[in-house]
């Protein structure tokens, strides 16, 4: 029995290596000098090369120089980093302001047409970008928002997925508590603020963590709606930088990855809750 567990653990290390290896590559790559990165990876980006790209386990001469250079004297990089942050956090704030009350209504209030409307929200949340792209373009163009950060933010704010996840979280708030509050004379607004929000926090955090990862990774939306590279988020810019300056690509890749990994590590509990909620029956 014990031995079986060991075998299993060893077997699972193989797929796990595919994850750790990527992190290792990102970490070591950011510690390499520009020349070493080019020596190692150059052939892969030059189809006429005679040799193959390779990757050492450890950098020959570890240096923080590329990282320092990126952080201290690349203002353009900060513009992109800020673009990403602004687009992501504005979306999250909007999802919270608009989505949380809507989720509360779906979860804890009774009104005619509730089931039908919630069904509509579910269908909308399931629509892929390919389907919503034209409608979004039409309205953004009409509002004159194309090529501004708001073309990414507004459609994200009214995404119905966070409403769905938050509603699942609010389902955990006991009705008896709401009845007690109403007997004590608390109105619907007070009940929402003082009972719903605190008790529904796990669901809200789940929605925010999932929303953060989604926004931080956005590729399709900015690619379609942002023409001017000065508005681009990191996720669009990084694939372009790759070929011209490999060392820069490695460090900026690491910096783009860090917030996402931190949110993942600290929010993993809520991330898992959120994924489970996406699968819970109503």
């Amino acid at each position, binding site marked *: 029995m014990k031995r079986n567990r060991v075998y299993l653990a060893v077997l699972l290390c193989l797929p796990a290596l595919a994850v750790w290896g990527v992190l290792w590559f990102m970490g070591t790559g950011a510690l390499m000098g520009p020349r070493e990165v080019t020596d190692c990876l150059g052939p*892969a980006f030059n189809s006429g090369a005679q040799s193959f790209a390779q990757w050492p386990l450890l950098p020959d001469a570890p240096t923080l120089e590329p990282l320092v250079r990126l952080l201290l004297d690349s203002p353009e990089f900060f513009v992109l980093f800020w673009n990403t942050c602004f687009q992501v956090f504005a979306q999250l704030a909007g999802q919270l302001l608009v989505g949380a009350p809507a989720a509360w209504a779906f979860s804890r209030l009774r009104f005619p047409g509730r089931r039908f409307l919630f069904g509509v929200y579910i269908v909308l949340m399931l629509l892929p970008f390919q389907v919503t792209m034209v409608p979004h373009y039409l309205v953004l163009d009409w509002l004159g928002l194309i090529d501004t950060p708001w073309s990414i933010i507004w459609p994200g704010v009214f995404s119905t997925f966070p409403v769905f996840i938050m509603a699942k979280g609010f389902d955990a708030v006991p009705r008896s508590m709401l009845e007690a509050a109403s007997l004590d004379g608390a109105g619907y607004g007070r009940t929402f603020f003082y009972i719903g929000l605190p008790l529904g926090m796990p669901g809200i955090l789940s929605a925010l963590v999932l929303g953060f990862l989604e926004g931080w990774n956005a590729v399709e939306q900015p690619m379609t709606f942002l023409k001017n590279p000065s508005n681009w988020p990191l996720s669009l810019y*990084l694939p372009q930088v790759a070929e011209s300056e490999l060392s820069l690509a490695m460090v900026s890749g690491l910096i783009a990855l860090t917030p996402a990994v931190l949110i993942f590590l600290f929010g993993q509990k809520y991330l898992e809750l959120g994924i489970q909620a996406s699968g819970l029956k109503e």
Partner: protein
Amino acid sequence: MRWKKEKGKKGEADAAALFLAPSLAGLTVFLFVPFAQTVYRSFTDALGQHSVGWSNYRSVLKNSAFLLAASNTAKFLAVCVPCLLAVSLFLALCVRALRPGGKYLKTTFLLPMALPVASIVVLWKALFSQNGILNGLLAAAGAEPVDFMGTDAAFWVLILTYLWKNSGYDMILWLAGLDGIPDSLYEAAQVDGAGKGQMFVRITLPQLLPTLGLVAVLSLLNMFKVFREAYLVAGSYPHESIYLLQHLFNNWFLAMDLGRLSAAAILVALALLVIVLPLQSVLRGEDGA
């Protein structure tokens, strides 16, 4: 008493309307109205001025690029959904078998979901290009190098990338499903002398059926985001084996061919509706209580 209750109920509906108002207003502006407009545009020319009947739809369905993209997407779904379901179920079972140490593995398998596609684009190019790391290893082992991104192999690179990135999500769903199976079932089976394999086939698999439907629907819909990975491994102009609907949509969008684009979007929506509507009860549950 009765009168009071009715009044309370009416107030509740009013409150709900207030709570829902911002969300509904936004959806009206950003989805409902423009969606209706999209349906309208699918019957007009590129500038939206003249009605052209069904000709946009005819032109989309005859377009070779659309057919290629649609069939690639369908092929991708057909291969990837079963693979993803199997791999993630396997991972979930292993992680559970290794409890409590399995939680580190769980974190590991979930992590790729958080890694930004853009950050690892260099690694993917370094791994899979013609003079890349993998071909270096193949050459060292005496094998012929493979042109991963320039041949049909690109399709499989995309599948692997997708599995790498998304198995963790499904694994969490399976784990929740596995946690929902009552221990008493296994205990009873053990008393009856059932073996491990028997218990898996007779108890675990049937009990996981509801989860299966759900994981399948979510995987199917998440699969449309695979464009990110395709863009990651191959940029805007990939090998034709991974030319997906999103690539086509981007091209038509750049050409501002809105009539055809609208028609294509409606067709994709209809295709999805046909697949998902029968399965929608899976997500909603039988009874909303």
